[in-house]
């Protein structure tokens, strides 16, 4: 039997190859409760043209455009997973399927991204349209990229090839700071003496020149450094270090970040956290609290929510719902999942339902964070995406009779 979602998906995908329909080039999504930059508003229409949102308002009538009746439904920007190896790893335990290894500042995760990973459709049909993909490993692993979960090529999928520098400090923090401080000092020296270096008139550097080049935007504060850190004392050390080195940083993990909420707010340091982190799961998360996000938000910190998953990035909404359960305001949770990562990572035309923004949109049957809500419509870059994944195909294959395996017909 064809699910309602599939019916709507087929109706919404005029460019679906299977149907061979021509794209009208514009779509009006009519009458939904829309999460605008100023909060949710009922009965709004959203006009998409090409890959952009053109207009948002009540009663938009555009002849010649496809129309999606969305009364009683909810429209949000596509959710953004701010940190995952999605598309870099296919099967965790199979090394041959992994392209996530970090090496140094000049490494670019975007070069390993597979837009045709099975994980992509599984993730987007749950309403996640974008992911910041990051290399794994300890130390300065390399550069993270922003990808949208549509498009068959890297060129189509990668929206920005370098959005952050990734640093997972050695578990012994003084060692990690000792090493990074020395590297940044070299990078500064190299940055000032580039011409002289070309003529062999500088001191020798231990780091590779390409890595020193790659660190220049970090030194200028243009490229944020995302730091994996949980323990309050470690966050305090890193805040001090970032201030001394004049770095723009983002905290990833932040299990005990609530203890430094004021300091983080004052330093304007955003935090990527998983609301399901609990204490004392480890020595560094001893004081984790379920209301971490709520406390940080109340202090004025930019909060982003991560699933800390790969194959299950789709639980992002549930994780955010848990943060709301513990006191994060609902609107703040939606913002944390959309506009905040876009702003922090420099993609200002993403993560919002506003004229001129890239049309990454999700239509939900109800509250996007509730566990009974389903995705009924999905657009990435203005293109309607069928709500089909390998998992829905497997389900449908086995739905009627598990023993009736496919066979050709005469």
């Amino acid at each position, binding site marked *: 039997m064809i699910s309602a979602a599939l019916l709507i998906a087929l109706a919404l995908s005029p460019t679906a190859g299977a149907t061979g329909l021509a794209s009208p080039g514009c779509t009006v999504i009519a009458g939904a409760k829309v999460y605008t930059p100023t909060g949710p508003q009922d009965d709004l229409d959203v006009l998409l043209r090409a890959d952009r949102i053109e207009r948002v308002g009540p009663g938009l009538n555009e002849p010649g455009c496809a129309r999606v009746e969305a009364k009683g439904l909810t429209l949000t920007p596509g959710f953004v997973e701010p940190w995952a190896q999605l598309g870099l790893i296919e099967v965790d335990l199979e090394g041959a399927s992994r392209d996530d290894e970090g090496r140094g500042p000049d490494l670019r995760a975007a070069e390993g991204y597979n837009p045709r990973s099975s994980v992509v459709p599984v993730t987007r049909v749950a309403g996640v349209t974008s992911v910041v993909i990051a290399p794994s490993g300890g130390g300065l692993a390399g550069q993270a990229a922003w990808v949208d979960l549509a498009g068959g090529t890297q060129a189509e999928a990668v929206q920005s090839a370098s959005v952050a520098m990734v640093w997972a400090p050695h578990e012994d923090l003084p060692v990690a700071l000792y090493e990074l401080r020395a590297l940044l000092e070299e990078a500064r020296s190299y940055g000032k003496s580039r011409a002289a270096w070309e003529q062999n008139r500088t001191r020798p550097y231990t780091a590779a020149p390409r890595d020193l080049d790659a660190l220049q935007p970090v030194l200028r504060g243009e490229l944020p450094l995302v730091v994996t850190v949980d323990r309050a004392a470690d966050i305090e050390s890193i805040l001090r270090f970032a201030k001394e080195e004049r770095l723009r940083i983002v905290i990833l993990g932040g299990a005990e970040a609530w203890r430094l909420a004021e300091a983080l707010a004052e330093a304007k340091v955003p935090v990527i956290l998983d609301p*399901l982190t609990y204490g*004392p*799961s480890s020595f560094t998360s001893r004081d984790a609290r379920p209301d971490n996000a709520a406390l940080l938000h109340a202090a004025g910190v930019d909060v982003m929510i991560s699933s800390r998953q790969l*194959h299950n990035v789709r639980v992002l909404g549930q994780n955010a719902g848990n943060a709301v359960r513990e006191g994060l305001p609902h609107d703040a949770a939606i913002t944390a999942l959309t506009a905040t990562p876009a702003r922090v990572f420099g993609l200002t035309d993403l993560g919002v339902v506003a004229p001129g923004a890239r049309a990454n949109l999700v239509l939900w049957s109800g509250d996007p964070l509730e*566990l*009974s809500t389903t995705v009924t419509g999905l657009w990435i870059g203005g293109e309607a995406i069928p709500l089909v994944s390998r998992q829905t195909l497997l*389900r449908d294959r086995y*739905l009627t009779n*598990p023993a009736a395996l496919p066979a050709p017909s005469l």
Partner: protein
Amino acid sequence: MLIPMRSGPLLLPLLSAFAGLLACRPPKPPDTPPPEPARLSSLEERGLSPVEAAPVINPPPLLLTGAKVMTAAGVTHDPGWVLLRDGRIAELGAGEPPAAQDARRIDLAGRVITPGLIDTHSHIGVYAAPDAQAHSDGNEMTSPVTAGVWSEHAVWPEDPQLELLVAGGVTTAQILPGSGNLIGGRGVILHLVPTRGARAMRLPGAPETLKMACGENPKRVYGERGSEPSTRMGNLHVQREAFYAAERLLRDWEDYTQEHEDWAKDGAEGDPPTPPDRDLAQETLALVLRGDILPQVHCYRADDMLNMLQLADELGFSIRSFHHALEAYKIRDVLAERDVAVSTWADWWGFKLEAWDGIEANAAMLAQAGVRAVIHSDSPIGAQRLNQEAAKARRAGAQAGITFTDDQTLRWITANPAWALGVEDQVGTLEPGKRADLTVWDGDPFSVYTHAELVIIDGSLRYRHDDGSQPWSDWTLGREVTP
């Protein structure tokens, strides 16, 4: 008695043996029953004798009123009432409660009462928090078959995660060894109350269980060491050998029992027959063959599950529950026919190849086919929100055109896991006579926004949300966790 003088060298030993027989054996009084034979079951009892007394609570009677009462037994009373007495559910019903003068009345308007949740797959206590080398007690990965080890011996009752489960509404959990071994050892079914030792935390009367694993994990662990198993065929080979050895042991016990019976009938002359030598691993497997220990089998792929069912048929035992079983939907007809429970997740998949074909509708398709579907956690994070996981599994069903009532969905985390653990006579539903294990929720238990507000175990309040009282784990004591 005359001894022929010709038996020279044999004379002394014979004489002394005979004298020994005469000297050490006093005349038997008439009508003494012959000594009982040794039994596997008495050896079991010996191994299970407690030192710390199980917690004895005499909770006062409680009358919970005004809440929506979800029994997980096909009936919901909205509003309803539940009367608890002597640690049991005495009565329950709809509307106005009876006047139970001796009971303390608690008004729970706006709340929802369910049976306490049951997690069939947990490593709490054996992989205790905080994550530490010293706490790595879940996998005795020194041999692929360690049937003689017991999870109970590795559970740390001070694991801070135990009370986090209770805060999530869980009242009973099966603690299992990991899946590094083909046969990892016995699980233990715990009633989540604070005790000093693990044995006192056992759910009284719960059966023994055995953890088995198929597929990638055991063959990877031992294959990397260059020993068997290193392939799926090695997996089955080692498991079959282990069970056949246990079958031989069972036959030895049967032979011994028969010999003992014959010896007793013949007047119990001389020494009684000697029972088989002790072998903790083989005894455990023998008890599985006898149906006394319930197998809990970690297995992902449909074909691997069929192999395990074949193994069970070959040896004559029944698998009580598969665990994880991401491809169970592909063989749900077989599982339904054999009444094998399936403990699975709402949405985990992909971390290894045997998990590649996981789908969100697994539990729903199984339940529709008449299989006892269970949502388990295998995770301290999932265990704190089993209700949320069940909600997601129900949603996936709806997307596939399969709908479930609240009661049916609730069974996935209450009545069905109770059956999978062989404790369905005691817990898992709100019915008169069952243990008073209840979770009181501050809203719809399937909403992401709902908390467990109160958790009652054996009729005694064990958890109150946000009440600021001291944690029960000593590890957590002394932490100030206030902003």
